[in-house]
């Protein structure tokens, strides 16, 4: 479970995230939508310990991220918006490295990696260097790395950029299955189609502030649309 309480982040005089309070329960796939520069990635970076909040707090699985960072991070799987990893390492070595950082014993780590590499059909590139990979392949290995330590919370920033349609389908299934197994998925995306198809709840952020939160039906009611797509809701909430 994820709890954000009055979360605020300021960069000098600019307020990137302004007093956000949210709760995401186990079993949910939570969509976090908003225009460019609205504060999505900043929020996610505060949730994963990459930025320190100016005020407010983040709790992951009951652990305060500021007070118990190690315990909180142990149960987080993070997929960043840009899959920057070590160019000179092979996919296999990178996954092993991440496993070691999460303190997974060697034999178990290798067994899990073999299992994970079967998720995407073209993962023979695990033996190639990261520097030679396409963006999509890097993204796939980053997704596998986030799953390696079997987290209970997935925090995802733009998960499908660079992926082919077949891989997008696989990623959607991964998130659905993860939530169905009792996990929590917090996902920021610009793909309204993805959000509409897999998110059980959605929140909109604009200029750092939450603009609406709920299921698609609840959001439609909030903007007084009897019917319409998520795109219509998005435009109504964030448009001029």
């Amino acid at each position, binding site marked *: 479970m994820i709890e954000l309480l009055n979360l605020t982040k300021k*960069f000098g005089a600019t307020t990137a995230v302004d007093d956000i309070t949210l709760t995401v329960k186990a079993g949910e796939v939570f969509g976090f939508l908003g225009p460019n520069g609205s504060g999505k990635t900043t929020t996610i970076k505060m949730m*994963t*310990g*990459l*930025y*320190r909040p100016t005020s407010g707090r983040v709790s992951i699985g009951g652990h305060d991220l500021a007070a118990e*960072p*190690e*315990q909180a*991070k*142990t149960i*987080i799987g*993070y997929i*960043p918006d*840009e899959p*920057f*990893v*070590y*160019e*000179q*390492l*092979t996919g*296999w*070595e990178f996954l*092993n*490295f*991440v496993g*070691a*950082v*999460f*303190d997974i014993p*060697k034999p178990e780590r290798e067994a899990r990696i073999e299992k994970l590499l079967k998720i995407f059909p073209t993962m*023979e*590139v695990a*033996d*190639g*260097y990261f520097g*030679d990979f396409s963006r999509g392949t890097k993204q796939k290995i980053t997704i596998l*790395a986030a799953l390696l330590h079997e987290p209970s919370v997935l925090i995802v920033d733009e998960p499908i950029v660079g992926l082919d349609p077949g891989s997008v389908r696989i990623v959607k299934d991964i998130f659905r299955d993860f939530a169905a197994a009792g996990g929590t998925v917090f996902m920021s995306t610009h793909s309204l189609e993805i959000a509409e198809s897999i998110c059980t709840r959605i929140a909109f952020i604009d200029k750092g502030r939450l603009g609406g939160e709920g299921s698609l039906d609840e959001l439609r009611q909030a903007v007084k649309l009897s019917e319409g797509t998520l795109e219509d809701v998005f435009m109504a909430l964030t448009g001029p």
Partner: protein
Amino acid sequence: MIWLLLKNKFRAARALGAKLSTGRKVTAVLSLIIILGFMLILAVGFGLAFYLLRQGPAGATGPVIYLLDHLFFLIFALAVVSGAISSLNSMFKAGEIDFLFSLPLGPRAIFDYLLAQNMLVTMWPVVIVGLPLVGALVVVFKISLPVGLGLVVSLLPLTLTAEAVGALLAIVGTRVFRGLSRELTVGLVAVLGIGVALFLADAIAPARLERLVDAAAVSGSDFIRNPRIDQPWMPNYWLSLAYKSGLAGHPAEVAAAFGALVALTVLVVGLARYPGARFYLDAWMRSREKPRRERGETRRPFPRFGSGLRGALIERDYLAFSRSSNEISQAFFFFILVLILVFVVSRYSKLFPGAGLWNYRAVVLLFGVIVYYLAMLANRFVFPSLSLEGRSFWILLSSPLRLRELLIAKMAYSTAILVVLGAMPALISAYFFQMAPLLTAIMLLWVTAAGVVVATIALTGGILYPDFSRQSAAEVSSSLAGLAATVASLLYGAAAMALFAPVVGLFYLGQQGSILAMIAADLGLSLAIFICLRQAALKKLGGAFLQP
């Protein structure tokens, strides 16, 4: 267009400086450290050069010219190797190359721009080395100031020529071998470096030296000409001639030799530039067509060294280092440089009377050289190590890893590598200078302490002032903070040298009982610096990185 690109480079450097400078006080302190450090380096360099020049028989310029002759050859030969390595990086691996080739610019313009950029970077260290040397020559041989300035300026064409030849070597090598692999690059650097060492060994063999000295005596000349390294087609020949004329007090001859040197430089740069620019695009394309690693290669256990978290951190950095042809060849180049220096200095003892005393003095100087070498290594490889986590730092920051583990791992292997790399030239020096076992052991103790302190200074400097926006270690290490850390290491080196000199002196005088106090002083100083900086690094790693 070339000027526009270079101007953008300066602007970017200025913007980076402004970004690094978190406040006026920080900038002022860093600037002060750098200025004082450079002044100290210049002063120490001047003092050493002055001291060495005064050792020769009064008024005799022959041995001095002989020394300078070899020094210039050495600078030229090593600058070619260094130029080839830096060209491999800037012309084939730098992030901006893709962008440059996407612009409506011909390969010639891009080549010219990169060559000009490399030359600018190479010029300043040569001037820094040359200033104290020429200063000492001006004082000892009473050369006029304008001639002295001319001698400083005449060092520049030597490096420009070497840089152009190095760039050409990099391009031809890349074109011929379809992108230089790590093994091939290291192999080429080794062959070139060892080739220079062997050539020099042959050129300054004692028997040859005796023949040259005799020949000079017979001809009545005080200029001991060594045909192995004194050929008119080599720029070091004209530079030597300019210095010889300067020492003899003939400004017109200095100007003539300088003119010839400039003409030769224009010719060599022009000749290297034509095929260089012509083959650059093709070589760059080939370097990108290297066969990729194929499936089915053996998956080695990870980590191989040690186990658990620290083992994984060390293995990751080891793989990143060992798979970078640029990094490994740079390290190898540094090592060859010191080996050659130790070798040459040991041979020069033949030139001076009282070789026994000279050897003791040289041991102290060589300790300074080893610390300088360690400081350069630490600047290039240890200082950038945290910054190079760069955009991949999210992996560690979002994991349950405590950053102090990262510090401990980096500290452990940086220190171990620096100590080993420092101990090797120390042992080789001991062999060449026939040092007593006890003095060798003391020098190793000093070098070990220096390895620990220099690694700590570089690592802490990199932690206090990281630059995560850069992907090139060379760019990070040449930042303001990198420079300040290096100067701090050199200041420590000067202090350690000042403590080492009396030990060697007491050893020479046979008063070995008094050296324990100096050992305690050196260890105390080193330990104090280590503890203070380690605490500062741990404090910074306590959470400030979470703030963007």
